[in-house]
């Protein structure tokens, strides 16, 4: 594998890792506050659809993204209602949300656009354009090694990629350096203690779920307007579950989440380039194995063979004020 091919694969890695990263951080907020969320997939899907649909009609990707975030927030609201207000089973609620999004997106897409459950192809201002960072063109040729890395790998992504990367330090700062973050983590470990301190458990958990909706909304918007040009049925293709896997892989920590998502993104990028694997390793690796690898790695991590992944202690438990 020569240098340029490597850069190409890594470039694809960053693009494929972005939706995973945004969804993974979304899950991080939710689960750190004690709300399990296996509905990441559904929220991404709903947002991907509404973003593409509104962008196609208005021609503006920003209005589209706002609508997409709205869709994800609505599903988050349902999840919050079920798991916080009515103290239902959070896992079942997540499953329901995934199916709700999978069904509704196609039904509505068919009704609005009549193209077999997809939105029209997006182009121009209805998509996120790539941003060329300053000096990218000059550095490409002039500076060896670092120049191409800067120009090919770091520059030339859409806005949401940079937002995703920026979200990692922001998440870390919010969770570990602010009062809100401390309370949010506490509510995921010991809600009774938070309640005793006079802070609203319900309010904090709803805030966490809302942040989760915002981030999955961005992830979905990137899928249909950044990565691809339009919505197609089931376009998340299990990414919400991979993000969930990455979250466990990262043991519910933001910087590790970046690493896990880049790793899983790299596996996805490799699966697109079987020729590269074959020329590098000298033998063929089944695409299916690469597809399954994130899940297999997560099971291994869960088994505790490579460091133990301990979830937030109050995760999945509805909080009942008085016993």
């Amino acid at each position, binding site marked *: 594998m020569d240098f340029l091919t490597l850069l190409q694969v890594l470039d694809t890695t960053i693009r494929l890792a972005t939706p995973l990263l945004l969804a993974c951080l979304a899950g991080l907020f939710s689960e750190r506050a004690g709300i399990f969320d296996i509905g990441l997939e559904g929220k991404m899907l709903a947002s991907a659809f509404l973003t593409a649909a509104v962008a196609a009609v208005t021609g503006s990707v920003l209005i589209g993204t706002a609508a997409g975030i709205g869709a994800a927030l609505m599903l988050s609201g349902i999840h919050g209602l079920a798991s916080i207000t009515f103290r*239902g089973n959070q896992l079942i609620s997540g499953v329901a949300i995934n199916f709700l999004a999978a069904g509704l997106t196609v039904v509505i897409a068919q*009704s609005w656009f009549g193209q077999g459950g997809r939105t029209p192809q997006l182009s121009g201002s209805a998509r996120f354009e790539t941003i060329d960072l300053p000096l990218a063109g000059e550095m490409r040729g002039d500076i060896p090694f670092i120049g191409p890395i800067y120009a090919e790998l770091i520059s030339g992504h859409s806005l949401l990629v940079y937002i995703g990367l920026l979200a990692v330090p922001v998440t870390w700062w919010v969770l570990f350096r602010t009062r809100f973050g401390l309370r949010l983590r506490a509510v995921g470990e010991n809600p009774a203690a938070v309640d005793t301190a006079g802070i609203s458990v319900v309010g904090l958990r709803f805030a966490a779920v809302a942040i989760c909706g915002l981030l999955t909304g961005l992830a979905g918007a990137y899928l249909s307007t950044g990565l691809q040009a339009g919505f197609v049925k089931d376009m998340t293709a299990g990414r919400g579950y991979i993000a*969930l896997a990455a979250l466990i892989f990262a043991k519910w920590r933001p910087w590790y989440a970046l690493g896990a998502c880049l790793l899983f993104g790299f596996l996805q990028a490799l699966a697109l380039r079987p020729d590269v694997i074959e020329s590098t390793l000298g033998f063929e690796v089944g695409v299916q194995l690469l597809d399954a690898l994130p899940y297999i790695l997560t099971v291994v991590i869960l088994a505790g063979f490579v460091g133990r992944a301990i979830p937030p202690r109050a995760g999945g438990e509805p909080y009942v004020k008085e016993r």
Partner: protein
Amino acid sequence: MQKMPQWADVVLIPLISLILAALLSALVILAIGENPWAALKLMVEGSLGSTYAWGYTLYYTTNFIFTGLAVAIAIHARLFNIGGEGQAMLGGLGVALIALFIPWPHWSLALLGGAVGAALFGAAWALIPAWLQAKRGSHIVITTIMFNFIAAALLNYLLIGALKPSGSMEPATGRFPEATHLPTFQDMFSTAETALFRGAPVNVSFFVALLACVAVWALIWRTRLGYEIRAFGQSESAAKYAGISPTRIIVVTMLMSGGLAGMMAINNVMGEAERLVLNAVEGAGFIGIAVALMGRSHPFGVLLAALLFGFLYQGGAELALWTSIPRELIVVIQALVILFTGALDNMVRMPLEAMFLRLRPAPKPARKTEPAE
């Protein structure tokens, strides 16, 4: 203390949840510019209107009974097996291997062998998540989700590679030999004059599904193991104190759950397709969740809920055929049923409980008379 009578818990709550789901679905149909009443009539006509329609409805019902029982039996041990999809896929692999590589003399033996193979493969796929839950505390929901994806990748790999007959372009196994053909209802019930269930895929495995219902009922409520499973589900610490091994219960329950999900394959792989194709399960593993929740984890409830979903599934296919309503509407209805019967259960339950408490003809008057004497 029981806040409301048993019948309210068993009948009223699922019914209200179902009505809520149906109302919302009707709104969705209205919103996309179709007539819900006409849609319902079309669904009833297309799924219950003829023996052919019944043949499809009962075919889907058979699938959902197996996956519903799989989820239900796990719920009794307070385990949420979301991996029915993957276990059913592996069941299909088991059936395919047994049908393709063993020369069966008669369909009845092939059915027996197929059922055993399907159950073994499905159970094997549930074994690792079960063991990890029991021994390492890894959350079974996450591991079974992961195993769904691993199963899909594995089947993809096998159907493109080793199991595909040479020369074929399609990712599927070759046709099963004629001797493994299961009698369909058409073969069984048609007479020379009248052809019933013509061309419908419902077959003898429907009766196997009914037997499975009875077997699960007997197991859960009439055996020591079933008692232990329920005790474990009610309180793990109490079960431990009573000398019940959590590891054993988790592993055994999940093996049975996986086996039941896997046994779905005798219907869809052996009975209908007669070969293993990609994505043979078609989401039936997930519908099992809705069926088990709706059926309150009781085999008889599962049977009724499976019938309901069989009706929805076949009716939805008819809708997609005759109207502009896409098939995915069924996924929406399924989601709403899961939401209302599963996650928003308390939303329906709390007001009902309050109502029953108020309606209760309190024993207060009886007590009042005492001090007067």
